[in-house]
Every structure is written in C-alpha cells, then in structure tokens.
C-alpha cells in the first residue's frame, strides 16, 4: 500500500509532480552530457589511435607526431632497427609534407602523406587502388577542389620558391583512388603517396627522412615496453605509446574534464535540491496526515519509505526522460563542436557509454533517495499528539 499511497500522493498534485520530474530530467540530461563530455574525448581519441593496431608512435626527439616540421633521418636504418625489437610486428614510416596541385587558375594546396601502402594506417581506400610509383590517393575534398577524378593525372609540387616564383619538386602524378584519411577531418584536402615518391620529390632535404613511424606490436606485448626499447635503440627519437598519447591528450584537455566535473556536480546538486524541495513541500502539506498515520499505528519506517518512494519515483522519471534528453542534446552539441576545422572525423566530444551513463543516473536516483530521507524522517518523527493539536488548531 506504500507504493499506492506514494503514487496517489504524486498524482494529487499532478502538474507540480510533472514540473518537478521535468526539472530533474533537465538536471539528469546535463549530468549525463557532462559525463559524456568528460569521458568522450579521451575514449574517442584512444579509439582513434588504436585503429589499425598501431600502438606506438615514434617522432623526432622532443616532439609529438606532426607537432613540428622536424623529421627523422636515416629512416631505412631506423625502420630496420625498430623492426628488430621483440614484439614489434610492423613499422609504418610516414613523411608529411605540403603539396601544391597545379594546373588550374590557382594552385590547390593539400597535405600529403608519404607512406608504405603495404603497412600504412593513415587512410582507407574507398574507391580505386593504393598508389604505386607516381600515383596518389586523394580525399574527397581534394578531388572536389581540383576537379580531378580517378585516372586523371595531376601536376604536383612539394615546394614553392617565392623569389623565383616557381614550384619545386614537381612531378606528374596519377590519381589511383579516393580515400578517407583517418586522422584528418572530412574537409581536409589530403593525398596519400608512396613514401619513396614524396622523398624523391623533396630532393636532398627529404631523402631517407620521415616525420613519424607508426609501430604495431603483438597483442601479448606491452606497448610501453616496446616504447622503452625503441627509445633505447634510437636515442634521437621520442616514442609515445597509445596510452601515453591518450594521457598527453588528456593532460592538454584537462580543462574540459574539470568543466565537465564542475557542471556535472552542479547538475547533481540541483537535482538533489529539487527533489528535496518538492518532497519537503509535499511532506509539509501532509504533516497532519502523517501524524494520523502514525497515530493509527503505521510505523515510522513505513512512513519514511512511502515518502522516499515518492522521491525515487520523481528521480527515476526524471532520469528516464533525462537519458533521452541528454542523448539528443549531446548529439546536437557534438555536431556543433565537430564543426571545428581540422578535427579528425572520428573524434567525438560526447560519447555515450552505457556504464558511465547509468552510473551517473544511478547517482542521481541515489541523490533522490537521500533527498527524500531527511524530510520524511523529520515528518515521521514529529510528536504525534502535538502535531495533531496544531493541525486541529490550524
């Protein structure tokens, strides 16, 4: 009968109950969004880095991958040295450079990656084939900008001499395919070419040099151990495991987490106060009824239970609506934030993770229970005779 009484008490002031549940829903949605924001970037960044099984990134000493234009020399020897480290199953050298596609009225500038197509993890061919020799795969944005199609030949240069106003490192390159670049945004103009081609176009400055090695390790090997071994074998590089990269990213984005934590805590407190207020108001209206229930023999714990059930019902209803509201809000906010230029397609700011979401909502419901206990216990503990006397006078 406690459940029936709780439900009837909530129905007694239906509009107030509805508004309170909506308030809790907004609070739950905000809490959920903050939880998604706090964990989403880290998770989606970790997932992005973990794609294709590459677990260690090797860049010039003191730099992060593509943080600077610095390169690693004696790339072939370095590749061989890394390959010899136990547990390393593949080494993918990458040389990044800016390229200019000539031929139109204005040159189209793009970012090019020189890779070994056999082991690369930077792009996926959507149409056509991997580039061999003087060929490239291009992003949709680059194809749109140049008007090129698969099979066309482009006039591509890797440098521009402003004094002579001439392009350097020019080469005619065939478009062998259309590709999606994993670490770039969909709007980035990008091309993937064989590493040897990019090195050759760069002349002596780029000969046998790479910007980065991506290293794949065996599943039973700790990437951190491989990272240490790589740095020991090649003193002029900095190796970064995926976990390290995630930690580094987390460090750089710590303000996001702090913001999310603070706003999440505020949401929780607001939800708690809302339920406390509603339950307190409801209890104060029913002091006489509660005293009468106690007088006719309803135990204090049962009175408390009935009122706490009301708090739980409000919190649960709010949490359920908040879950839906939170997911929709997160999607909307995510679409706005993903519009920032240069962000990889795969990065999500708000990532729905059922465990985190349900933990957050469980916390909200728990706070709803806590919110109901105090006013309920206070009401159930009032002296019965004095309360009835006051009610009779009132």
């Amino acid at each position, binding site marked *: *009968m406690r459940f*029936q*009484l709780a439900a*009837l*008490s909530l*129905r*007694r002031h239906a509009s107030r109950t509805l508004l309170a549940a909506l308030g809790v829903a907004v609070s739950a949605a905000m809490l959920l969004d903050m939880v998604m924001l706090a964990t989403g970037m880290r998770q989606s960044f970790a997932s992005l880095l973990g794609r294709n099984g590459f677990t260690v990134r090797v860049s010039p000493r003191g730099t992060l991958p593509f943080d600077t234009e610095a390169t690693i020399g004696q790339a072939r020897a370095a590749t061989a040295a890394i390959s010899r480290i136990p547990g390393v199953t593949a080494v993918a050298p990458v040389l990044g450079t800016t390229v200019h596609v000539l031929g139109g009225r204005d040159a189209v500038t793009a970012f090019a990656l020189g890779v070994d197509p056999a082991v690369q993890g930077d792009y996926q061919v959507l149409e056509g084939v991997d580039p061999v020799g003087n060929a490239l795969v291009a992003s949709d944005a680059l194809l749109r900008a140049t008007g090129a199609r698969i099979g066309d030949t482009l006039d591509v240069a890797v440098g521009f001499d402003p004094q002579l106003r001439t392009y350097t490192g020019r080469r005619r390159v065939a478009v062998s395919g259309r590709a999606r670049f994993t670490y770039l945004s969909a709007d980035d103009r990008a091309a993937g070419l064989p590493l040897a081609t990019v090195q050759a176009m760069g002349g002596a400055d780029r000969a046998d040099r790479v910007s980065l090695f991506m290293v794949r390790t065996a599943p039973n090997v700790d990437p951190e151990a491989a990272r240490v071994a790589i740095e020991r074998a090649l003193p002029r590089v900095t190796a970064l495991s995926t976990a390290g990269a995630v930690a580094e990213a987390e460090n750089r984005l710590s303000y996001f987490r702090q913001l999310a934590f603070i706003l999440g805590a505020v949401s929780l407190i607001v939800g708690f106060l809302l339920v406390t207020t509603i339950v307190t108001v409801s209890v104060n209206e029913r002091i*006489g*009824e509660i005293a*009468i*229930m*106690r*007088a*006719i*023999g*309803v*135990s*204090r714990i*049962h009175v408390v239970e009935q009122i706490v059930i009301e708090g739980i019902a409000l919190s649960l209803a709010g949490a359920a609506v908040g879950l839906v509201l939170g997911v929709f809000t997160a999607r909307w906010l995510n679409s706005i934030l993903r519009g920032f230029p240069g962000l990889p397609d795969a990065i999500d700011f708000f990532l729905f993770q059922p465990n985190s979401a349900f933990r957050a909502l469980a916390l909200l419901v728990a706070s709803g229970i806590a919110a109901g206990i105090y006013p309920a216990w206070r009401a159930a503990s009032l*002296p*019965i*005779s004095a309360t*009835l*006397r006051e*009610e*009779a006078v009132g």
Partner: protein
Amino acid sequence: MSGQPILLVRDAHRDYPRSGDPVHAVRGVSLDVTPGEYVAIVGPSGCGKSTLLNLLGAIDRPTTGSVTIGGTAVSTLPDKAATHFRLTNIGFVFQRFYLLPVLTAQENIELPMAEAKVRLTERRERARELLGYVGLAARADHRPAELSGGEQQRVAIARALANRPIVLLADEPTGELDARTGGDVIALFDRLNREGMTIVVVTHDEKLAGAARRVIHMLDGRVIRDEPLLRRA
C-alpha cells in the same frame, strides 16, 4: 460489565516544556476502565481531556506515572512497540476525521490492516463488512471529499475498528458534525458498546456524554468527579 481493568492509569502527569514554567496538562490522574465500559471524559477546553486520551492511546507518554492497557505498560514501550500496540489494540476516532484524501473509503479502512499485514482478500472483505456496519456499503469507492462530514466520521470509525481493537478512543467525535449526523455517530457508538466494545470518548457534547455509562469530569488537569450514569433500558 466488570472484571480486570482494561485501562489502568496511575498518578499520571503530563507536563509540556515551555519557556518559564512548564504547562501541567495532566496532574496526577488515576483511573480504571473495565472491559465493555463506555466512558465519557468531559470538562472545559484546556482541562487536559485530550492529553489524557492521548496517554490512554499510547500516542503520548506521561511525564510521570503509568498507563497500562490490556496488561501492557504502554507508557514504557519504545516507539516501535508502542506504534505496533496502537495498530493492533487501539482504535482512534478524531474530531476532524483525518481520512487520507487520496484513498477511497474502503482503502482508508484497509490501511491499518495493510500495515498489520492482513492478506488483501481478507482486508477487502473486512473493509466491506465494516462499511456495511456503519451504513456506507454504497460509498466504498468514494474519496473523503465526496462524502459528507457524518459519512467521513463513520468511515473513520470503521477504520478504527479494522484491526479489532480492545478499546476505542474518540476525541470530540461529534465536534464537527451537525445535530443529526452527530446523532448517527452517537447511535453507532452506543451500538458498538452494546456489542461489547470498550469506548472512551472525550467530548463537550452533552448528548454524547449522556449516552456514556460513566462520566469523568476534569478540571485543570485533574479528575474532579467520576460518576456512573444510570444504565438505560
């Protein structure tokens, strides 16, 4: 009707703390009520009648002295035990009826039985039986707001009888009723007493007091006169 007292009050005092001197609501009251008695407690407002009734019903405790109901010293019972004792041994009727407005008449009667863990079918049956007893069988599904004052009080009486109490305590049960509906309640109490129910009422209503078999007069927290009335034919 005679025998061992069902209610025993011995030198009960009830003081309420107040800044300055405490209020002495009940001062050294002793009385016995035997099973089947119909007692009215009368006196001017503020003389301690309702406080004494609360002591008799174990919803308040004497500051000193003792209250024993059906052999149980209720004045020393901890809250949980006192609550259970009220549930199973005492029926309360209040001036303002105090039915739960969200429940129907039948559900209000079922409430103490549900609390006493009476099975659903049994309590439904008992509630209907009690509604029939107080003449409201047709009003089972009505909420208090849909009932007249007299009907609400009769439902409250049915609720008080739900767990078959050993004593029925009523605080000004006709106080908010007009003469006709008050008369219905008086008749109902009379019928209950004739069927063996021990009843103690606190009242200003001369008709109700006159229906009792014994009248206790109080003044300033003390019993000043305790007189049996002649049994009516």
